[in-house]
């Protein structure tokens, strides 16, 4: 502000006569004149139906914040007057044509304000959508976005790159308990979206977690080292959960329920646990004894019990389970009802259910009479691929795969080439019309097919195949394996199992968020709920179901967890505040792992596709596409709250980088792609993430006085940047970090670094106080005795590396938003060890040597918070 408005004389507090024996501190306090008239008249207004009190001269926003009413803001910087750029703080004021912005609008007595009307929420949503339509940045990397379980891929790759494979597996297990299984059977949708292919080739994400997982198995098998736990094991809750079905969905639900402290029993129909992993996926893709069993052992090691040979509907009912005192039942019984073709002679001898065939084969038995035959496999999914490749391995004379769509539409397309290499003939775009049978023997002699042409795209985006009349042809064969998909077997629904219902698509009806079925205390997850999908999807579903079941047995309101549950899922659009992680978010300490040195010297495993150095090298290739701001980005938080960060534009062939990464919404159009500026030693600039809120420019000019940034250019191309886009290094920047602190997004960030201790040369300090204003963390303050300002650095400087690590994992911020982070962290039982805090010079450290911070913080209040806002600041405004 340029003008100095004289304080009206009647507001100057008459100074009382100084008492005789006044302490030095008191006198100093008194001579610090209040900066604002403390006695502005009170006003009352109505906000959201509640009468609140404020003071004259406050904005609506200030009044609301003082009264604990949250209004979203992006451009508002508390140290400065409202700026009015983001329009997020619009509120409804009765009698106004257009909703005013609360950060700039003075509160008036008697105003009737509503902060959450349909209209203002819509306006905020539109604003966010507009921002995201030009926000050329990833919150989470596209790989993580595309992994159905949203694994922290750059996280575990980074651990791989550092050779910390156990840590890598631990990160993986936060969302999927089985890195080695997935490392073999996952179709790896993540890799299709890896940005590294812009540089050269996508990262081998799947092989990387396979390597890390295999190391864990090795340690467990050879030295009985427990697999790492992703989260702290919770104390027993005494709640009992029955999981029916031991496939990936059931196993994953069991795993996370066990970590949450519940008692879990898994009831399985077959002789051994694993579901499709054991009886569907062949040994050559997933070794049972070497991979499946050891990874499943992580469940038994946590105290989970498998009870095999127990079938729902045959051996027990839901009534039975609930009568036995199970607090919750999770149904994860998969899909075992093979679909029918619906064509003549389908039941002829020689037409075999592919799943049954595979079950025999995976048990290591030869399917009777398969050798030497001509086999036709109908279908295009995993089952079909496994059927053809197993048939080849079992000595079939001729194997033909027929699929009604195009090759690129095959769910298991990646395997086709391997199958062709193994001698399989493939025919695409043909559908069976009838099975030909030898009248005399009743045996199959061939199948008649008809050519398919592609019609309009269906719901899945694939074009629907339609038969082309007159293009019939016949394939002669001895055996037909049907692999055209499965649905769940729900024949057990009925007496004893009332309440459970089937959907129109013949699946188990279960809520997508709470996983509740029609029967109280019974949950459904995995293929039985979704229809046949993939292992990774089943596992993700199982984990999410575990959250819901956990909430249910703890007696939380499932309706209420619906929001939290949605929030819990670490999707790009959702913050990761998973119930499990909230207690253990700082647990990146090493569990009882062997020193890396020792591991390095003991181990080379021949079956493992990567050598250690290859695995490390692959990890190093990762571009770490995550946004550093994740977890404290206001834009992302609001985007989540307003549901505007939904889909991310997928890479399109031959489209410029500008089209690759922005969030897709109704406004998507041209967008900017700016260069990153990392020339500055302390501040990282990523202008593509800038939302032009102007905070950095205003703070830098008006609080710091350096004026390194301003709005450049006009119109859509406006960007808050340095003059002429010069490197920040070349501006008069004083490296105070204020801009990075105020930036609501990841456009300006403190560069990870370790702060050295700073020493003040008192003989040269001119007491200008600029450091006090400029320090982004309020580590300095004007004490009553200003000359000693710098000694108030009993508040620590902050180790930014530690913060970055914390943020990545917890998506929580202590430093940026919460000035009293340290007491809070301590109160939460978090260890602020020496790694977090730099060592202070002995002269400043508290009594008793050491650095004494813990003690200072544990008291919770050392005057710092008071110095922050109230009246203690040096005259500056």
């Amino acid at each position: 502000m340029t003008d100095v408005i004289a304080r009206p004389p009647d507001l100057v507090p008459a100074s009382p006569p100084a008492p005789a024996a006044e302490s030095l501190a008191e006198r100093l306090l008194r001579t610090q004149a209040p900066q604002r008239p403390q006695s502005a008249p009170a006003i009352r207004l109505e906000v959201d139906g509640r009468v609140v009190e404020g003071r004259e001269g406050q904005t609506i926003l200030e009044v609301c914040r003082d009264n604990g009413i949250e209004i979203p803001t992006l451009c508002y910087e508390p140290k400065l007057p409202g700026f009015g750029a983001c329009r997020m703080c619009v509120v409804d004021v009765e009698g106004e044509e257009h909703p005013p912005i609360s950060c700039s609008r003075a509160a008036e007595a008697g105003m009737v304000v509503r902060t959450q009307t349909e209209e203002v929420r819509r306006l905020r949503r539109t604003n966010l959508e507009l921002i995201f339509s030009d926000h050329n940045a990833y919150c989470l990397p596209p790989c993580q976005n595309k992994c159905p379980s949203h694994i922290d891929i750059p996280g575990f790759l980074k651990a791989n790159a550092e050779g910390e494979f156990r840590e890598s597996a631990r990160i993986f297990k936060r969302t999927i308990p089985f890195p080695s299984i997935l490392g073999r059977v996952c179709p790896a949708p993540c890799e299709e979206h890896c940005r590294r292919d812009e540089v050269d080739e996508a990262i081998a994400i799947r092989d990387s977690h396979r390597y890390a997982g295999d190391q864990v198995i090795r340690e467990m098998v050879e030295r009985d080292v427990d697999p790492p736990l992703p989260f702290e094991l919770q104390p027993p809750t005494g709640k009992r959960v029955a999981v029916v079905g031991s496939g990936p969905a059931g196993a994953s639900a069991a795993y996370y329920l066990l970590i949450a402290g519940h008692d879990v029993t898994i009831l399985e129909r077959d002789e051994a646990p694993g579901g499709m992993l054991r009886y569907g996926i062949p040994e050559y893709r997933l070794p049972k004894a070497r991979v499946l069993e050891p990874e499943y052992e992580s469940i038994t090691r946590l105290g989970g019990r498998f009870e095999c040979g127990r079938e729902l509907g045959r051996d027990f009912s839901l009534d039975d389970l609930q009568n036995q005192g199970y607090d919750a039942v999770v149904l994860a019984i998969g899909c075992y009802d093979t679909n029918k073709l619906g064509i003549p002679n389908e039941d002829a001898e020689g037409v075999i259910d592919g799943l049954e065939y595979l079950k025999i084969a995976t048990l290591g038995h030869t399917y009777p009479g398969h050798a030497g035959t001509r086999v036709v496999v109908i279908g295009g999914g995993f089952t079909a691929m496994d059927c053809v490749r197993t048939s080849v391995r079992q000595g079939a004379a001729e194997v033909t795969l027929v699929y009604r769509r195009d090759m690129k539409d095959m769910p298991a397309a990646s395997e086709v080439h391997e199958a062709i290499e193994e001698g399989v003939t493939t025919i695409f775009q043909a559908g069976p019309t009838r099975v030909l049978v030898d009248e005399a023997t009743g045996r199959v002699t061939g199948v008649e097919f008809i050519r398919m042409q592609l019609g309009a795209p269906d719901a899945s985006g694939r074009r629907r195949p339609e038969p082309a009349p007159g293009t019939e042809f016949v394939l002669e064969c001895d055996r037909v394996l049907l692999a055209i998909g499965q649905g769940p077997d729900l024949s057990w629904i009925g007496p004893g199992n009332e309440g459970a219902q089937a959907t129109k698509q013949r699946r188990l009806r279960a809520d997508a968020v709470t996983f509740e079925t029609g029967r109280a205390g019974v949950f459904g997850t995995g293929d039985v709920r979704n229809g046949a999908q993939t292992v990774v999807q089943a596992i993700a579903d199982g984990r999410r179901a575990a959250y819901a079941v956990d909430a249910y047995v703890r007696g939380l309101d499932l309706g209420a967890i619906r929001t939290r549950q949605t929030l819990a899922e670490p999707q790009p659009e959702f913050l990761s505040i998973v119930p499990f992680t909230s207690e253990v978010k700082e647990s990146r300490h090493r569990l009882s792992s062997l020193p890396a040195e020792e591991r390095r010297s003991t181990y080379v495993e021949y079956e493992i596709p990567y050598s250690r150095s290859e695995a490390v090298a692959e990890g190093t290739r990762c571009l770490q596409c995550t946004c550093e701001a994740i977890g404290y980005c206001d834009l992302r938080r609001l985007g989540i709250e307003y549901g505007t960060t939904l889909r991310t534009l997928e890479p399109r062939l031959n489209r410029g980088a500008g089209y690759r990464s922005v969030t897709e919404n109704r406004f998507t159009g041209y967008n900017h792609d700016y260069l990153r500026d990392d020339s500055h030693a302390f501040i990282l600039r990523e202008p593509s993430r800038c939302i032009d809120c102007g905070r950095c420019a205003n703070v830098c000019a008006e609080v710091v006085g350096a004026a390194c940034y301003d709005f450049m250019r006009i119109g859509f191309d406006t960007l808050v940047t340095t003059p002429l886009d010069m490197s920040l290094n070349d501006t008069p920047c004083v490296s105070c970090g204020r801009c990075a602190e105020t930036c609501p997004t990841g456009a300006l960030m403190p560069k990870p670094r370790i702060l050295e201790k700073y020493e003040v040369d008192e003989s040269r300090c001119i007491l200008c106080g600029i450091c006090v204003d400029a320090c982004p963390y309020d580590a300095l303050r004007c004490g009553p005795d200003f000359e000693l300002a710098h000694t108030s650095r009993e508040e620590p400087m902050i180790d930014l590396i530690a913060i970055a690590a914390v943020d990545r994992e917890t998506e929580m911020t202590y430093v940026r938003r919460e000035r009293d982070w340290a007491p809070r962290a301590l109160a939460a039982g978090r260890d602020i060890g020496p790694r977090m805090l730099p060592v202070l010079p002995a002269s400043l450290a508290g009594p008793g040597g050491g650095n004494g911070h813990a003690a200072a913080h544990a008291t919770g209040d050392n005057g710092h918070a008071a110095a922050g806002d109230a009246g203690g600041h040096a005259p500056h405004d």
Partner: protein
Amino acid sequence: MTTILPSPASGPRPLLGDVPAAGGPAPTDLAAAVAGGAFAALRTVVGDLGPTGTLVTIAASGLRGRGGGGFPAGDKWRAVASADDPVRYVVANGYEADPAQATGRLLMETRPFAVVEGAAIAALAVGAREAIVAVRAEYADAVRALEAAAFAAEEAGYLGRDVLRSGRDVAVTIRTVQGAYMLGEETVLLKALEGRRGQPEQRPPHPSERGLFGHPTLVHNVATLAAVPWVVVHGADAFRAIGDPDAPGTMLVQVSGAVAAPGIAEVPTGTTLRTLVDLAGGVAPGRTFKAVLVGGPTGGFLPAELLDTPYTFAALRDAGAHVGSGAVVVADTTTCLVDLARLLVRFSADEACGKTIPCRIGLRRLAEIGQRYADGTARPTDPQLLVDLADDCAASALCDHERLAPSPLRTAMRYFGPEIDDHVLRGTCPAGVCGPVRLAAAAGRQGGPR
């Protein structure tokens, strides 16, 4: 110089006065001007009316701002006059943002004394000691005329220290400002005068409360102020009797486009658009009328059926256009409105100051929808999206720019739907302007129905 068109009836012309005879005295000739009545109003204000009387007269005259918004001048004057702050300013907005517009320029060049006198009267009335006429730097002639007029008037004691021995000081300064379109917006103009970043400020507080350097400031278009001396001399009732009773007086309108004799006319408010076109000689020979764009780059297209719309703030707003800069452009059948609308919205998007999100990104997205219309690649959801986005931008707008900028597209949709359909559904441009339409449509047809 732009042709001055005849006024419709032989009513008074408070703004332009009588058309000067060729070879007559220069507009900056003080003696000639005084002989023609200049500064008579200032004398009345100093001698009879006093500040309060002047305020009452202006309020009673019903004068409304000519800068586009049409806000009652009396209310603004009273707000500034009753402010607590003793330091106040008057700013005459002579920026004239619309690049195709010259009414203000004509006024400043031909009637500099009216502008200067109006500013001085306003300053006396609201208690300001300084009035600043901010003129677009490119208007070198206007700047010279105003400077000469202000200098001569000060020499003669009409301005400066102790105006007409009233004991009041009024300095009238001429300042040149240079910048983009948005500079015409009042808060931007004020910031430019302060030497700050050219972006609008949130209102309220209005400039009348917190304006130049934080002090109460009366901002008026030069045409608003130029009407003031006439009002004072002839009285509020005489002014009220001219034109539309709700917004009386005359306005400067620049009629251009496919007309026979383009030029600027001073017309009573409420004159119909048809009359305006006729004043400019009607539609040019050999051309066929299609639409009239009223209000400049952020104006609206009105069809032939609406030619009887009176030129008033309210009637134009209801029709989807606005007075804006005072531009009336006739588009004939060789013009593609889809093409023109998208260009205009893109212009507005590119000229936006870039401060607020709905304006910086929203206008661009609107322009992109317009582009899709022109290309024949619009999505089925686009019409609704356009309306929704324009509404949302207007609701959370910081300044009027983003409220008005979608007008060309909105009126094109409202009145010329079939033309848009031709582009979007049939891939043809009736005016034969949009080339890519046919290409895009042909490509689309090959790939089956979109």
